């Protein structure tokens, strides 16, 4: 395998994860609504893409499993099977297993266990006669070779021997055995031509064939043998690189779109052009193509479809797929092509050419349909007539008409009337404006609204950038911000009103740039929430509980690190909600509740925080029971009196578990204390509200980003220290005698009617030259878990928003230091963690 394999593998793994998330999400939707065709389609596509990618990467097991799962979905899609619980569960299991296999592939490890049983299980669910998804190859490979010029990304035949295996055989073969060598070379050539076309490694293959002749001559044998082997290696490398390139094409295309270079589109257009010309030639040569010609036509469209699917050219894929579908009947029946299909195929070629031209022009297969293609697509029923607005809106994006009706600008009847005589390529909005139903403004507003939603829906699929580069961008922007600040303070600039005005404008741009850069780290909570949907499904099924899981606000965005940090705690809480929160069916009926328990997961913005709320309508937490339990376990004094809120918070104590019995689902040692710790770590908070018999609500309050901190800048001798502004309660300049000594406990000060320990930062951090006399220093009272704390510093320098950076060192340091930030003068300041200043 070539060395760039790792990069492609990485790309494949990242893509597959996304596709698996999509599949899982769709399957869960399908479990709830077995007739959801959109979900079937989405899942099918996702698995199909994974299969194709795995084929290229030579990940046979992933490919195999994805293939059967895809077959099953295909059966569901075509109505040959019904998506009952059996099928959904099997497919969910397949997704889980695929995830494991993908993870293993990422680690380059051999996956544990096997999936043979699972594959059998899925096969057993397949309807009796699954259609051949790939046509059998008719005889005469030479004749057909040109029609298979391009690899069929989505259709690796199962009997294919990997190239390296054949190459390995070649190496192992005795050079004197010329016949055997020739046979190996031919097999290699066939394997390459079959999947990659005759041009894939034609020079190497030709060279090998010539050299095989030379093997007969003992004098030349050794030399020829060496050359054959190196040619074989080159051929295999070249072909595999090409396959990998194609596998990575979707990502490459999206990245290339940003950089302007578009080699894959060029390739695609060239190949598509060839295939369409070839199909056209067949059609024009024969008014009634015979079965073998139909076969060839079929393959042309099939290949165009495969490539388009791979590169994400959705419309071309859809059209080619539809044409291919129409041809299937004639091909399978072995009949001549009927006249109407002949015409359809020709029209299809025109339409595809149109889309290809559009793709070449705009670089994307999105946007308004070109008229010819629109007409053809409408004819095929791909572009619904009712929609008729000539728009290609992705799933989840409302149509202009719907938006207009929603805003009350126009009636549904008007829309229908207008779209009835809408010509292809004409826009509904224009039509309505012309006919005076709406104003131009209303049309534009609706279009803007639609674009906004479309951007949201498609937002994630634009470009994939490595986190490393993103961090670097944030770093550089931070640096820019600092140099900018330095420049603006230069006397030469401050003395010139004109210059300082320009610099001021620049400062605003730089700040905008910074917030943009930081926003790049944000991800929607969707993926995290989808994981929870799966957990609810699995847990509910295991416990035999019926759960109605509702998600809200999964488009709320949080910092990537936050999304990762809360995934585990949330998972635990969700399982808890299903396990401990929601009663079993009998209990619910007895309590007069519907049999299905409701678990809701909602996210919303609140100021500069994000709130994630998990609520259930279960039995709720009983404060009295919690207190009794905590006393019994010796976690609180026997005479303690707690408020309800305090009682609820008991569940965060290590060693506290409310489950009477430890079930298989939750309560395996990891408790709510771990949840709390994880949330604390990202500066979040968990709050509980609960009512006995009515249910509980857990609210996780998170900062918007972990990357930026509003800090108070403090000075201790020559060092600058930063403390999160949210933890500062008050600043005190103590009078003489206000700071007292408590025997054995050091200095304390009375603040907010309690004694608060005083920590002289200069002393605990060993900073020389710090002010020792508290009355000449400043005390900052900080809020922290386990009571307030006052830190003694020399001076408060001000407030500053800083970008939090890790210390970049794994060497130990004082636990009270949480990180660092770059200050206005370019030096590094240290950020304090008030909670851990007194940890030792």
């Amino acid at each position, binding site marked *: 395998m070539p060395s760039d394999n790792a990069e492609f593998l990485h790309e494949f793994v990242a893509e597959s994860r996304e596709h698996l998330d999509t599949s899982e999400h769709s399957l869960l939707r399908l479990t709830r609504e077995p007739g959801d065709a959109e979900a079937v389609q989405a899942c099918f596509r996702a698995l199909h893409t994974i299969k194709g990618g795995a084929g290229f990467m030579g990940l046979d097991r992933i490919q195999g499993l994805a293939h059967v799962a895809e077959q099953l979905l295909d059966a569901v899609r075509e109505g040959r099977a019904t998506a009952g619980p059996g099928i959904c569960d099997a497919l969910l299991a397949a997704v889980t297993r695929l995830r494991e296999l993908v993870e293993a592939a990422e680690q380059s490890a051999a996956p544990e266990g096997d999936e043979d049983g699972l594959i059998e299980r899925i096969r057993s669910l397949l309807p009796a006669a699954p259609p051949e998804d790939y046509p059998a190859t008719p005889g005469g490979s030479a004749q057909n070779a040109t029609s298979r010029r391009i690899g069929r990304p989505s259709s690796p035949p199962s009997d294919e021997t990997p190239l390296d295996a054949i190459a390995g055989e070649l190496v192992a073969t005795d050079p004197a055995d010329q016949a055997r060598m020739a046979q190996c070379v031919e097999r290699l050539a066939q394997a390459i031509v079959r999947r990659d076309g005759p041009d894939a490694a034609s020079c190497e293959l030709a060279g090998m064939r010539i050299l095989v002749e030379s093997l007969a001559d003992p004098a030349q044998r050794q030399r020829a043998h060496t050359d054959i082997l190196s040619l074989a290696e080159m051929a295999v490398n070249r072909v595999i690189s090409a396959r990998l390139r194609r596998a990575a094409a979707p990502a490459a295309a999206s990245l290339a779109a940003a950089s302007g270079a578009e080699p894959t589109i060029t390739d695609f257009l060239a190949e598509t052009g060839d295939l369409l010309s070839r199909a056209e030639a067949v059609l024009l040569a024969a008014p009634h193509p015979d079965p073998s010609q139909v076969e060839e036509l079929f393959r042309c469209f099939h290949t165009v479809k495969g490539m388009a699917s791979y590169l994400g050219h959705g419309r071309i894929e859809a059209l080619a797929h539809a044409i291919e579908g129409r041809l299937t009947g004639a091909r399978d029946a072995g009949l001549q092509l009927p006249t109407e299909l002949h015409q359809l195929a020709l029209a299809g070629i025109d339409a595809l050419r149109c889309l290809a031209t559009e793709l070449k022009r705009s670089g994307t297969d999105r946007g308004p349909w070109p008229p010819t293609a629109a007409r053809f697509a409408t004819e095929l029923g791909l572009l619904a007539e009712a929609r008729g607005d000539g728009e290609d809106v992705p799933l989840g994006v409302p149509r202009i008409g719907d938006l207009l009706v929603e805003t009350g600008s126009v009636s549904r009847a008007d829309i229908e009337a207008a779209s009835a005589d809408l010509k292809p390529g004409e826009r509904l909005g224009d039509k309505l404006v012309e006919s005076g139903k709406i104003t131009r403004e209303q049309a534009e507003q609706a279009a803007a609204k639609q674009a906004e939603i479309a951007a949201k829906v498609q937002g994630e699929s634009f470009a994939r950038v490595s986190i*490393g580069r993103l961090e670097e961008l944030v*770093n*550089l922007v*931070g*640096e820019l911000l*600092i140099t900018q600040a330095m420049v603006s303070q230069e006397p030469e600039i401050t003395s010139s009103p004109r210059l300082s005005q320009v610099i001021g404008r620049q400062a605003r741009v730089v700040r905008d740039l910074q917030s943009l850069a930081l926003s790049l780290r944000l991800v929607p909570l969707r993926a995290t929430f989808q994981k929870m949907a799966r957990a609810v499904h699995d847990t509910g099924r295991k416990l035999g509980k019926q759960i109605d899981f509702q998600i809200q606000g999964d488009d709320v965005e949080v910092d990537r690190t936050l999304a990762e940090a809360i995934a585990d705690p949330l998972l635990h809480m969700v399982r808890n909600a299903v396990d401990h929160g929601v009663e079993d069916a009998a209990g619910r009926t007895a309590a007069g509740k519907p049999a299905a328990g409701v678990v809701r997961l909602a996210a919303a913005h609140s100021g500069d925080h994000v709130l994630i709320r998990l609520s259930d309508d279960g039995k709720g937490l009983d404060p009295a029971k919690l207190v009794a339990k905590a006393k019994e376990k010796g976690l609180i004094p026997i005479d303690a009196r707690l408020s309800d809120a305090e009682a609820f918070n008991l569940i965060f104590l290590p060693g506290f578990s409310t489950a009477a019995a430890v079930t298989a689902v939750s309560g395996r040692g990891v408790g709510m204390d771990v949840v709390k710790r994880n949330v604390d770590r990202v500066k979040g908070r968990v709050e509980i509200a609960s009512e006995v018999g009515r249910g509980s609500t857990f609210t996780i309050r998170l900062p918007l980003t972990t990357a930026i901190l509003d800090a108070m800048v403090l000075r201790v001798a020559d*060092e600058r220290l930063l403390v999160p502004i949210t933890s500062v309660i008050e600043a005190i300049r103590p009078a003489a005698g206000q700071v007292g000594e408590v025997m054995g406990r050091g200095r304390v000060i009375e603040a907010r009617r309690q004694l608060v320990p005083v920590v002289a930062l200069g002393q*605990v*951090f*060993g*900073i020389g030259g710090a002010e020792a006399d508290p009355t000449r220093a400043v005390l900052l009272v900080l809020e922290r878990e386990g009571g307030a704390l006052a830190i003694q510093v020399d001076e408060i320098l001000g407030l500053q928003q800083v970008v939090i*950076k*890790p*210390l*970049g*060192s*794994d*060497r*130990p*340091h*004082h*636990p*009270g*230091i949480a990180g*660092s930030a*770059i200050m206005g003068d*370019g*030096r*590094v*300041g*240290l950020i304090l963690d008030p909670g851990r200043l007194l940890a030792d």
Partner: protein
Amino acid sequence: MTGNAPAVSVSGTYLTFQVASEEYGIEILKVREIIGMLPITPVPGSPAVMQGVVNLRGKVIPVLSMRTRFGLPPGEPHPHNVVIVVDGGDGTQIGLAVDRVREVAKFSEVDTEPPPSYGLNIDASMVAALGKSQNRIRILLDLAKVLAAI
């Protein structure tokens, strides 16, 4: 340690630098860049060898004092003082504070000798070989050992 022969070849190109009166070398391939002395922020509670952290174009990286690492007292600041930024593995960068940079020198197999088992002023485990050329002796360091946690 079995014998003095280095397990791997130590020949190659080295960046040499001076700390106190000795000249040391580290493999040039591990060197990212050389930067002038920056204001270093000490990190409380960290080991003595860690002089602090600096801002390297927006990235915070640790700086290790080679004087402390070699068991020497801190020197007087000098305009020649620099920080050599090296690859710390896993994409991390670490700065090495040295007195001054000397040169980039090539050492072939014949120019190098296994480290002596005695007579060195520094911890011998850090030394990959002694490099001899132009009648000078340079101590060629094993960077991984130099960076090893202390």
